[in-house]
């Protein structure tokens, strides 16, 4: 069998290819492409992709390319893409990094679109300020959350211990933890996770003492005595077996999957309120969340409402206005809100919150109630962390481990932490 190709065949084929490619290119030129990059779990990705499809169907000729990574892989990828002039149009941004990215000119200011494309008038003022750097808006908050203690309800019931409340003190908590461990209902199971290296928990404790992690000028806002007391408190917990031993705690890579709670090693973990959804997704036991313990009976809690994450528009995007339109859809459209729920935190828009409330499941309602219930308890939003804050967080973790494994005592730990953090921040 031979394939014969006449001149006519070739010409016709060529013409077909040509017309097809012209069609395709004209379709391409009509199409607006928007690349969106975020970090998070699979369940967040599913929700986000659904919203993107919705946006596409309401805006014909628009193609959204979504991409997601875990937290630790996310920042290297983003930095490389920005450096390679290949930044995504829409960037999920964290409170920790927004100042760095904005000051280095990687983000587009959104002030021009406020009121026209970006209708965020009913947002909490504080949260708008949280997304602003040097007086310009660089990030639209996707939701509010707050530090929270995740609690395994079943494990507490098994041990016959009452769940903590908003007036539980750290002293109570040490006793409760030891009781759960002593009850011994599960193999290798402890009352509490070791929170000595968990920065948001340390911050909460410092705020109760009227201190903070960082000053507005980017210096550290606590001293060696504060840190030493903190480490001493946890050393006592380890001693009393109220919390997990250090080699168990060191398995925690500070994500939902490897926390002592999810690993089945402890009845608590320290996280953020929007993460309850993710925690419950991979834990069989029923979970709930509580505010962090108090330093004393009459202490004021150290919580605050924090923008869980932002959407920013890249300075490299071709059409920042369209980016703003996409973000507006994401935070204001009721259908989008119904899909997103409170997985990224409690929506900032009052209208969206009201529309959303009746549609939420139990977990979603718990998150909503937790954050709105903080009400008067919540303090001011601290200034955005200075550059070097990420490194300082690693230093806290490392020093906490050194104390945990007995290489330093609590007093030395306090001095080491303050020295290292000061050095890191001075380097910037």
């Amino acid at each position, binding site marked *: 069998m031979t394939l014969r190709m006449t001149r006519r065949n070739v010409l016709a084929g060529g013409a077909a290819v040509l017309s097809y490619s012209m069609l395709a290119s004209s379709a391409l030129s009509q199409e607006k492409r928007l690349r969106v990059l975020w970090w998070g779990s699979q369940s967040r990705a599913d929700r986000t992709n659904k919203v993107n499809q919705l946006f596409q169907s309401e805006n014909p000729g628009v193609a959204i390319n979504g991409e997601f990574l875990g937290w630790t892989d996310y920042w290297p990828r983003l*930095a490389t893409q920005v450096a390679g002039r290949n930044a995504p149009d829409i960037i999920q941004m964290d409170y920790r990094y927004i100042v*760095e990215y904005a000051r280095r000119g990687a983000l587009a200011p959104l002030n021009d679109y406020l009121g026209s494309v970006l209708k965020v008038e009913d947002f909490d003022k504080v949260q708008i300020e949280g997304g602003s750097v040097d007086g310009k808006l660089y990030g639209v908050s996707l939701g509010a959350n707050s530090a929270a203690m995740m609690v395994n309800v079943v494990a507490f019931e098994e041990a016959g211990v009452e769940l903590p409340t908003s007036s539980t003190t750290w002293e109570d908590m040490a006793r409760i933890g030891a009781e759960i461990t002593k009850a011994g209902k599960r193999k*290798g199971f402890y009352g509490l996770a070791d929170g000595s290296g968990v920065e948001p928990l340390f911050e909460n404790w410092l705020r109760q003492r009227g201190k903070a992690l960082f000053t507005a000028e980017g210096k550290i806002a606590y001293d060696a005595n504060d840190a030493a007391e903190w480490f001493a408190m946890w050393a006592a917990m380890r001693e009393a077996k109220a919390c997990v031993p250090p080699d168990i705690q*060191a*398995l925690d*890579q500070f994500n939902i999957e490897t926390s002592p709670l999810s690993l089945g090693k402890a009845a608590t973990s320290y996280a953020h309120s929007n993460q309850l959804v993710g925690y419950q997704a991979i834990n069989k036991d029923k979970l709930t969340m509580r505010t962090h313990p108090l330093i004393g009976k009459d202490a004021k809690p150290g919580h605050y409402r924090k923008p869980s994450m932002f959407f920013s528009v890249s300075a490299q995007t071709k059409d920042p206005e369209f980016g703003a339109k996409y973000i507006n859809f994401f935070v204001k459209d009721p259908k989008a809100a119904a899909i997103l729920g409170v997985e990224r935190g409690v929506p900032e828009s009052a209208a969206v919150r009201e529309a959303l409330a009746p549609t939420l499941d139990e977990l979603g309602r718990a998150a909503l109630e937790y954050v709105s219930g903080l009400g008067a308890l919540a303090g001011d939003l601290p200034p955005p962390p200075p550059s070097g804050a*990420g*490194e300082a967080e690693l230093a806290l*973790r*490392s020093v906490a481990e050194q104390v945990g494994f007995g290489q330093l005592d609590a007093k030395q730990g306090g001095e080491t932490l303050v020295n290292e953090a000061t050095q890191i921040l001075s380097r910037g």
Partner: protein
Amino acid sequence: MAAVQDSAIAVGAGAKGRPAARGRLADLWTKHGAGYMFLLPWLVGFFGLTLGPAVASLYLSFTNFDLIRSPEWVGAANYVRIATADPKFAASLQVTFLYVVLSVPFKLGFALLVAILLDRGVRGLTVYRAIFYLPSLLGGSVAIAVLWRQLFAGDGLINSLLAQFGIEGPSWISHPDYSIWTLVVLSVWQFGSPMIIFLAGLRQIPTDMYEAASLDGASKFRQFYKITLPLLTPVIFFNAVVQTIEAFKAFTPAFIISGGTGGPINSTLFYTLYLYQEAFGNFRMGYASALAWILVLIIGLFTAFSFLTSRYWVHYDD
């Protein structure tokens, strides 16, 4: 067939007979063009992906570069900080040296042992060779490191086995006293590639030497010590140099097992992991480039030292 061949020769002769009217360059092209075309993928790779970035990183090592703003020239400041004010540099170097010193001898020893066993004419040798080589192929991969994490975690397989004997093991990967050892064991487990090379080396040793030795009444151990080892020294030398360089560059296992932190307490902070943290965690590309060049220098010194000492213990049979 004959006719075809004849005509081909005729065409060739015609081409050769043509006067050299074209330029020298074109002439070179006809002579070597095909060769360069075949080399092209490698040339592009070498200049575009190896030499180019290397030169760029040398430049960047004298700058502050945060990936977003353009690099800012700071002279030798990065190198000065490495030398005088960076405890983590010292810590990571210490961890890396420990890893090299532990993993390379163990790995080579184990590889040699297995190679000798396989050399004794095992049935189904090719199958064993393939099986033993497999971990080396998989070794650098993330999946294996994740598997390792599972095996050595507090309630992993290793501790379940120990529990059979009534021993309560710690969480090996997250205890600063043991974590480096799990990485060493992982490295030894990937003995396949030096093993294959040892096996080839063993096959090169003439059997009549052993025959002569056993006629003279030399024990197996003596034969190994007096014949096998000396004749194998070139292969041992090659494996040692290659594996040392590999060990200095190790990254993936530590990255996965510590979740990128190098913890607990910097006990798995390999040099390359620290370099990665500085580059992509703290966005100090210039400083990370300087660290990279220090590593090049260290590996270079080590290799040069190996070559210098090799003349005293490596025997080339000629």
